Structures are given as structure tokens and as C-alpha cells.
């Protein structure tokens, strides 16, 4: 029974095991989950191992090896969703559907759970239903969704406005504000030639927009000069950092610039294939993006001898992720592109010499490629004149949280935090989390600091918290995120992020003492020095930042002077009370803890 839907999919992907993730996604879109018998069929047809399928499927959040319900509802659980009341909405939905959070209903109809930030922070709370984004949730909307689910109405018949994703572009500068004729940047590049194009990008001092800020021209040059059987261009659109959604807008409205930037890179480094790694949460963008690619092929902006440039053949594929933040790390992303678990590689070697299929590969952010088109069109010197000394050009910020005008803001580098706050209508601001949980928490005293590699580098997230917000809970949400997204490869991050989450829960539950503070500090040192990749290195940042800058939010959690257990001892007796029917005083343990302050 499974061959009927699997075979055409395998045919389309050329029976290529490196396409395993796309094959699994399409299988699941058809059947609802990945059936054990379907794996047998894959194993036979692709000549791969069962464990390969199961280990890949088990790694990504959006693959299911067991039936997850005909309606799989996942509430986005970024702090901005929480601030907009997502948990109340989730509980309401569970109540109305008579189901338990995280479990599938007994009739197999529906499951309701949470997932990491879905990139809709400017129009949350948001959820995914069978992979499709629903924005701007309200109690009314939740009620309608429950009704639609109960009546098993197909998603195609749900009200279209539920799925509407707004652009919310609030400030345009050179990138978002310039007219773009597809092909213009390529023509300019062909006039220059590959090396001169790279020189322009170097002159422009374009630096990676994913946050790390590596010089793009050097990366392209390094890749061009690296020996290999083939060279590859990879666009990192796995925009998983909570609070970031600028790539979503670039891909929705500026896809031609992004694809043209990738094509420029292909020309510069001598690649024939580019791959866009699109995060699974942006599944709804797949068809529109494919339509853009198709248009570009028709216009000979992709394909053979592009725009008559003899010998320059280049095309672009889209690879959809399946819910794994770690795949934003470039070597994990490449593993994922190869149809594997998204585990960061040991480095060196770096992707620029040993990337996709071990060949020289440029991995750049969506925004970096888009900026590349401006440089090709107008020259590196012009671009270098924008922004600041070490941060040329402009930066897109994804602004969300406590402000009246959340959305996308493009500024020349060097803009102050205060300026952004003023522009987005934030008042009474207490803090801004710049660049997401792995970034930095900026307090009011630092609002004159600047967004630039010299001061506060950022991948683009800009989450605003006013004085009504509890910064401890902000940090706790981020720590939960890291524990959830740790890939599990290395000991310190796999275990350490869970220990850290437990410690934050302990403080939240009123069991905190100075002992736990020391533990948090110790874990931080360990994660920083021992972890395999950036996820582990930065997992403690939000806690340390908020302890340093918002001490009182923690002090009120320090309800005990001496060590206190992480769990409530009386609660630990509850199962025995239920089994025995006892409720006498000896059947309880009171919080008579030692040395406790009244």
C-alpha cells in the first residue's frame, strides 16, 4: 500500500538517498506520518538502512514515526508568543478538544503541543497546523479552529485569513527600498568577471548577516580557490533564532534578489548548483519560491549559459528543513542537506574547502546574498560607504515584543538601540534581547549602544521587553529553548542544557537557594569551554546576562538560604497517598526545611 505514494516521490528525487529529508517530508505529507512498513519500502528501493531512516526521522521535530493525529497543532513558544498569551490559548484549545497537552487524542484526530519560535513574532501568537502557519491567534480564532478540527474540515477550506502572513516592513533603506530588475546584478557581474566580482564584494566589506560576520568576499575567494570536483552555493534560510523573521520577508517579497545573489556567488566560485535550505516552519513559502525559480529559468536567469554567458550553468534547489534549530549552524546544515542528522561537524576542515558532499561550499545567510546583488549593481566602494567603519551596509532587524509597530526595519549599521525603540513605538522599555537567546540582553542603561559588529553584532532579532515583564521568565524561556534544541552529540550540551533548564525550573518553582546560583555559574563555564558548537557555548548567555543586569528578578526567587531540593517532597508522596487512600498527617511532608528563612 505504501509503494503507491512512495514510488512517484522516489522517482522525482531520482532515488537519491541524499534527498532523504525531502522524500520523508513528501511521504509524510501524503500519509500523515512515516509508517514502519513505508520504511521497509524505502530501505528496499534506496538501498539504505532502516536505522538511517529512523535516526534521521527521529532527529527532526516535524517527522513522525508514530501517528501524531490527523491534525497536528504546534503552538509557537517563543517568549514573544508567551507575552501574547499563547499558553492560555493552548490550554483553551486542549480544554475544548478534551485532550492533554502533548498527547494524541484517543480517536487519533488531533494533538496539541508546543514548538520553538516559528518566526511570526510580529504577528503572534502563532501555531502550525499540519505544517501550515496560522497567525494572530485569539480566543475566538482558537474556538473556530477547534470547531474546524472537530468537524474534520480540510485545511484548504479553513478561512484564508487564518493563514495570512503580513510583511510588516516598517523601514526601508537601500536593500528593501531599491527597485530591482531580475538579471541586472548578473549582467553587471558578467561585465566584471568572477575575480573582479569577488574583489568588489571584498571592497564592499560585506560581512555575513547570520551574526558571525565573516567577510563574505574572503569566503567566496577561499571557496573559488579550493580544489574540488564541484563547488556549491548554499543559502542558509534556516532562520531558527527565536525572534528572527527577516529572511521570511526577504524570501516572500525579495526572492529574486536572494536567488540572484546565490547565482552571483555561483558565478564567482564556479558552482553549478545552489541550494536554499528553507526552515520547515516556512513550508508555506515553498510553492511561491518554486514559482520564482521557474520564472527565473524561463528568463534564462537560471539554467544553461545564463543570459548568454557561455559556460555558466547554474540552478537552484530548495531543501526544506524539518524543525531543528541546530541546522542553522553551517556544518549541521550541510549534514542535513546530505540527508543526515543535523549534527555539527568537527571543524576544521571548514565548509569553504570541505562542505556539501565534502566539496568546497559557500554557506551564506539569505540577507548576505541579497546584499550581494546591490554590490554587483552599484559597486563595492559605494556599499562600503554605508554603515560604519567595520560594518558596511545595512541590516534588517526583526522587531517584536513590547512595541506598537513590530516588523522589519532596515537601518544602516550603527543605529542605536534607542533609535530603533523610538521608531517601533516602544515605551517604558526595560530591555532588548538583540540577536535572540544566543545574543545579548541589553538593559536600559545601554540603549545608546549601536547595532554593528564593533558593538552589538546581530543576526537580526530585536525583542523588546517593557517594565511589566519578568526578565527571569524571559531567560527561562530561552533556556528551555536551548535544552529542547540541543542536538545531543556532545556531553556538555546534551546534559548541561537539561541541567540548566532544571535549575531554572527549580528557581521558578520557589526552591532556589544561593547553591543553585553557583551551580548555574559552574555550568556556564563548562558549557562555554567544553561544548562542541555555538549552541552549547551560548546556552548560558541569557541567564548570565539577566543575572548581571536584572538581579532583583532572581533575588525574589531566592526563597531559601540553604540548599533546598528541586522537587516538593509532599508532592512526591502524592502517588502513594492516592494508592493507599491515606491523607493523615503522617502521609504528608511539610516544608520544614533546615535553615530556611521565614
Amino acid at each position, binding site marked *: 500500500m505504501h509503494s503507491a505514494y512512495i514510488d512517484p516521490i522516489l522517482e522525482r528525487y531520482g532515488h537519491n538517498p541524499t534527498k532523504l529529508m525531502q522524500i520523508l517530508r513528501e511521504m509524510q505529507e501524503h500519509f500523515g506520518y512515516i509508517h514502519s512498513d513505508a520504511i521497509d519500502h524505502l530501505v528496499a528501493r534506496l538501498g539504505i538502512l*532502516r536505522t538511517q531512516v529512523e535516526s534521521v526521522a*527521529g*532527529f527532526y521535530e516535524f517527522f513522525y514515526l508514530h501517528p501524531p493525529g490527523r491534525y497536528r497543532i504546534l503552538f509557537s513558544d517563543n517568549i514573544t508568543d508567551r507575552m501574547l498569551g499563547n499558553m492560555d490559548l493552548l490550554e483553551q484549545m486542549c480544554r475544548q478538544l478534551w485532550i492533554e497537552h502533548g498527547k494524541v487524542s484517543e480517536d487519533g484526530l488531533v494533538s496539541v503541543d508546543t514548538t520553538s519560535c516559528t518566526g511570526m513574532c510580529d504577528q503572534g501568537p502563532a501555531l502550525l497546523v499540519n505544517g501550515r502557519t496560522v497567525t494572530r491567534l485569539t480566543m475566538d480564532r482558537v474556538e473556530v479552529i477547534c470547531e474546524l478540527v472537530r468537524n474534520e474540515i480540510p485545511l484548504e477550506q479553513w478561512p484564508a485569513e487564518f493563514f495570512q502572513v503580513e510583511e510588516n516592513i516598517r523601514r526601508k533603506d537601500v536593500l528593501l527600498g531599491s527597485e530591482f530588475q531580475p538579471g541586472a546584478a548578473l549582467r553587471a557581474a558578467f561585465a566584471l568577471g568572477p575575480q573582479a566580482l569577488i574583489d568588489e564584494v571584498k571592497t564592499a566589506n560585506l560581512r555575513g548577516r547570520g551574526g558571525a560576520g565573516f567577510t563574505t568576499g574572503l569566503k567566496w575567494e577561499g571557496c573559488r580557490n579550493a580544489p574540488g570536483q564541484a563547488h556549491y552555493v548554499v543559502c542558509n534560510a534556516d532562520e531558527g533564532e527565536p525572534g528572527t523573521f527577516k529572511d521570511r520577508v526577504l524570501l516572500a517579497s525579495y526572492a529574486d534578489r536572494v536567488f540572484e545573489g546565490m547565482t552571483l556567488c555561483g558565478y564567482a566560485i564556479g558552482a553549478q548548483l545552489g541550494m536554499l535550505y528553507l526552515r520547515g516552519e516556512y513550508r508555506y513559502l515553498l510553492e511561491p519560491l518554486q514559482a520564482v525559480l521557474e520564472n527565473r529559468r524561463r528568463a534564462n536567469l537560471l539554467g544553461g549559459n545564463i543570459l548568454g554567458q557561455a559556460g555558466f550553468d547554474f540552478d537552484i534547489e530548495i531543501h526544506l528543513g524539518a524543525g531543528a534549530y541546530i541546522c542553522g549552524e553551517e556544518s549541521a546544515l550541510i549534514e542535513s542537506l546530505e540527508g543526515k542528522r543535523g549534527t555539527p561537524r568537527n571543524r576544521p576542515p571548514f565548509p569553504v574547502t570541505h562542505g556539501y558532499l565534502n566539496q568546497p561550499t559557500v554557506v551564506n545567510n539569505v540577507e548576505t546574498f541579497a546584499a550581494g546583488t546591490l554590490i554587483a549593481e552599484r559597486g563595492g566602494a559605494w556599499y562600503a560607504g554605508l554603515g560604519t567603519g567595520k560594518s558596511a551596509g545595512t541590516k534588517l532587524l526583526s522587531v517584536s515584543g513590547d512595541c506598537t509597530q513590530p516588523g522589519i526595519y532596515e537601518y544602516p549599521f550603527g543605529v542605536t538601540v534607542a533609535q530603533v525603540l523610538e521608531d517601533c513605538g516602544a515605551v517604558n522599555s526595560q530591555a532588548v534581547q538583540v540577536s535572540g537567546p544566543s545574543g545579548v540582553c541589553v538593559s536600559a542603561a545601554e540603549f545608546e549602544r549601536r547595532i554593528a559588529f564593533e558593538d552589538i553584532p546581530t543576526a537580526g532579532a530585536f525583542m523588546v521587553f517593557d517594565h511589566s515583564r519578568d526578565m527571569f521568565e524571559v531567560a527561562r524561556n530561552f533556556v528551555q529553548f536551548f535544552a529542547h534544541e540541543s542536538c545531543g552529540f556532545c556531553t*556538555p550540551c*546534551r*546534559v548541561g542544557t537539561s*541541567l540548566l533548564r*532544571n535549575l531554572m525550573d527549580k528557581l521558578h518553582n520557589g526552591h532556589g537557594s544561593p547553591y543553585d546560583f553557583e551551580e548555574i555559574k559552574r555550568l556556564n563555564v*563548562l558549557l562555554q*569551554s567544553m561544548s562542541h558548537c555555538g549552541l552549547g557555548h551560548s546556552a548560558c548567555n541569557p541567564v548570565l546576562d539577566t543575572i548581571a543586569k536584572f538581579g532583583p528578578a532572581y533575588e525574589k526567587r531566592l526563597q531559601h538560604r540553604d540548599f533546598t531540593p528541586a522537587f516538593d517532597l509532599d508532592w512526591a508522596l502524592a502517588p502513594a497517598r492516592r494508592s493507599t487512600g491515606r491523607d493523615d498527617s503522617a502521609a504528608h511532608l511539610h516544608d520544614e526545611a533546615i535553615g530556611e528563612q521565614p
Partner: protein
Amino acid sequence: MSNTFTLDGKEIPFQDGQTVIQAALDAGVYIPHLCHHPDFPPHGSCKLCTVKINGRQTASCTMKAQAGMVVESNIDELNDERRALTQMLFVEGNHFCPSCEKSGNCQLQATAYQLHMLTPHFDHFYPNRPVDASHPDYLLDTNRCILCSLCVRASRDVDGKNVFALGGRGIKTHLLVNAKSHRLGDTDFSGEDKAANVCPVGVILKKRQGFAVPIGQRTFDIKPASEYVDSRMPTKEV
């Protein structure tokens, strides 16, 4: 410049392409490790072998040796962190040494002794993990798995069988068996396999052989892990 680097002040020779830990172990100098095994390519996951190279911490199993490197390993700062990693491994799984057949021959336990671990320190996770007794000759007790992937590598690279893999993600990462039933008994795994003899802890165990060697005569009763230097412990003939 000759091919040597210094490790805690001692000159260590190396061959081109060798990693820091390979050169150190060849020179008879112990660096604590669990996922490293001299017969397999580096994995780099346990992080126990982390050293300081020119002041910066890095896993010595994935770092290629370079002439003139200044490597620190046996220093309190690193041993404290290694001990904490070992404690993490102990609380992550269910490690009850007194009732484990591997006790005395277990590399995790021996490494913990080496690092002078007196307590697991953290709160235990007490995960619910399966025991698989389906194979006629071997037992699979994943309660003790530390996810070093040595069995995965051995079965894939030496045995050519691919019996094992790692599945799941994050704290839920776990050992997978390549069978539809997920049972070891339904694979072609055998006692002759390299994978049957490479587990550093008590996950893959030969049946009907538990506690055969009396306390006092087991591998690490005789001498500590540091004196075996690498993971090629004597095969336990019974």
C-alpha cells in the same frame, strides 16, 4: 622544526596527520577519554579529552598535532571540568555499579576513579530505558549507554553490518538497533563482531558470563585507567 609538541611540559613526538591524543597515547601519556578509540576515526563527542592548546580548550581527539604546540592536560582546571562531564554521564543514565556486570572492567567507572569522582553531584534523571535480551548470546542494557558511538563505528567500519545507530535528539538521544522490531535478536549481530567487544560501559554484554572475574582481579582492579594508556584493554578471556 622537528615533529614534537609539549604536553604538560613533556616533549611528545608525532607523525604527520596524528591527532594530539593519538600522539600522546603513543608516547604513553594518558589523557582521559571515552569516545576515542585508537582503532577508529575520531568522534569528538564525549569531550573528556579536552585539553588546553596554546591556552585555548579543544578536544584532543579531533585536533591534529602541530609542531611546537603547547598542550596542557593534567591540570586541576581541566580535571575539574572532566569530572563534571563524567558526573553528567552518570546522572544522565542509570549507572548502578554494584549490580553491573561490567563493574571493574568499565571505562566510565575507571575514568571516574581517575578523576576522583566521589559523587554524581547533579540531580539524577533516572530515565526509563529498555533492556533487550532478545539475542541468544548478548544482552543490550541501554540504561548504561553514554552515546560514545563506538559500537556504531565498529559495526559499520569493521564488521560491515551496521547493526547500531544513534537516534532521537538532545537529551533523548538513544541507541538504535537496525531491525524493524528494534531487537538485537533480529539482527545478524554476533559475538565475533568487533561491535560485541568495544563497548566501554555495560551496554553490550555477553550472557551467562556476569561477574566471572572476582573483585580484585578485574581490569581496573589490577591497575588504573591511566596505566592502560589507551582503550585497547586486554580482551577478557573467560
